[in-house]
């Protein structure tokens, strides 16, 4: 399942990042890699983006990108 299938407050472990190029680099440098545990903090209006927290970082990610982050429960 992807990040978007998680509800607010739920945690997930990153299995795959189906991204390439700049967005992938950006997420990596923020600390999001395979095996990292993340938690969904909030969704925006119309679920356009999702607020994630992992490590000590809080990141807002748009749907387009978030749907390509695969997680396991």
């Amino acid at each position, binding site marked *: 399942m992807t990040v978007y299938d998680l509800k607010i407050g739920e945690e997930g472990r990153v299995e795959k990042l189906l991204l390439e190029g*700049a*967005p992938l*680099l*950006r*997420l*990596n*440098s*923020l*600390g999001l890699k395979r095996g990292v545990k993340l938690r969904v*903090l*909030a*969704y*925006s*209006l*119309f*679920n*356009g*983006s999702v*607020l994630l*927290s992992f*490590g*000590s*970082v*809080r*990141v*807002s*990610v*748009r749907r*387009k*990108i978030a749907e390509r982050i695969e997680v396991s429960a």
Partner: protein
Amino acid sequence: MRAALAGNPNAGKTTLFNYLTKSSLRTGNFHGVTTAPATKTRGGITFVDLPGAYSFSPYSMEEESAKREIENADLIINVVDCLTLSNSLNYTRAILAKNKKMLIYITKLPSLRARKGWLDASKLSRFLGVPVLCSKRELNGFIKAFRQSGKFCDPSPEPPFQKIQRDVTLKLSDCYFAGEEGFSAADRLFCNKYFSTVFFFASVTCAFFLTFHPLMPGALLKSLTEELICVKLSGAITAHMTNPAAISFIKDGVFGGAGGVLAFAPQLIILNLFLILLDESGITSALSFCTDGLFEKAGLSGRTAFSLVSGFGCTAAAIATTRGCSTVGAQRRTVAVLPYIPCGAKLPVFLTFLSPFFENPFPVITAFYFAGIAVAALLSALLKSGEEGLITEVAPICFPSPLTASIKLCFYLKGFIIKVAGIVTLFCTLSWFLANFSFTLEFVPAERSMLCFISRALLPLFKPMGVDDWRIAYAALCGFIAKENIAATISFLCPEGVPLSLSAALAVCTFVLLSPACVSAFSASVKEVGLKFSVKCVLLQLAAALLGGYAVGFIASLA
């Protein structure tokens, strides 16, 4: 000697730079405020403030420029936000690998302590093999010693950079504890999409209300200031003058123009105070996240939407509020689009032209307002690049520091008075000259002035709208100085009523709706996004205004 300040976005580099060099560069509690390196020399050391970066992989132009500056620097001050230490250290390690003289400066220590975390600077220093400083006093001491040791071309480590023995037995957890990294109650509140959206609209309405409503402090202070400057002060100066030309110059030219603009100051202060508080507390960051779904379609963000709504009051003020936009692209788009939002000064213009034809002109005027909003939203959606805002760090909510807020406000006001008022006074004096002197340089009434001649010359441009009278063109030209002038000029020049048919009146209103904003807005725009871009916008708006006027005039005359 070059000292580069490097670190993650929102670590506090620019704040430190401002302290070290006594500058006042723009700062903000969100990521991506600094977009280009800035240098300033103080006490023999050239400090370079860099944009934030997470690594040396070139994600963007900002990170590229950071990488280059680091490679050219003699000393690297790695500014590290201790709230996100474990992540920040990735960049630190990358810089360490460059083998440059380096020290680490820790920021946001009080916030770390507030959430029950701790940091042992000396242990961390032995863990990394680099000096770790936590206070400005320590930093000043280091810099003084660095300056005194002089020869930067000497590659050997001089005091205070004696080799710090790396202690490999230490782990990060021995030096640092992050505390409760929870989502505080305030965070939870502002990240709740329903609360946030309501709060957003409420705060925008409140700010707008306080600033522009006739009975509120903003508007009252504006008329007070205007009264003080344009009436009392100019009256005092001209009381003993006899030459009518000179009196008119002081009263109408200099004070009329400059005074009118300076009168904006109270409203700008209120509006900007609101925005500064929202920015510094991190609420804007959270709001932008929550309302992103709503504004994304129009290529906007919560922040730019705030600016656009301010545009209903005053375009110049709204342009000034785009300063806090997170990317240059978003700022430019907002500035390009703002003049289409009808400002408060356009309302009397619509009323003057449309009242003769409509018992109740407000429905028509509302239609014009919605047309303006539609054009703005459409243009914004067309211009958006779509790549902004894909992945953004969101700052935690904290109480804004009153000191930082007041410093920012003062700095802003100073800039406004110097730059904006300067350009506007120049334009006003020029237009006063054109409106009161003939080509033979005699002081004459409006009908024989140079401006009248120019209006007659430009009348053909207005003919397709159904306008035959030079006085309308004259008023439209005056409108470029300040939209308030249009209504005033019309009532002065056409005491018998406005000489326009309904279709021509609608066409002229369309022209006013789409035309470039007044010179105050233009100078605010120059200050925010530069001269070239502003001029481009003005030319495009002029073209659109004329074409729009023709189109509406044509369609209306058919009906």
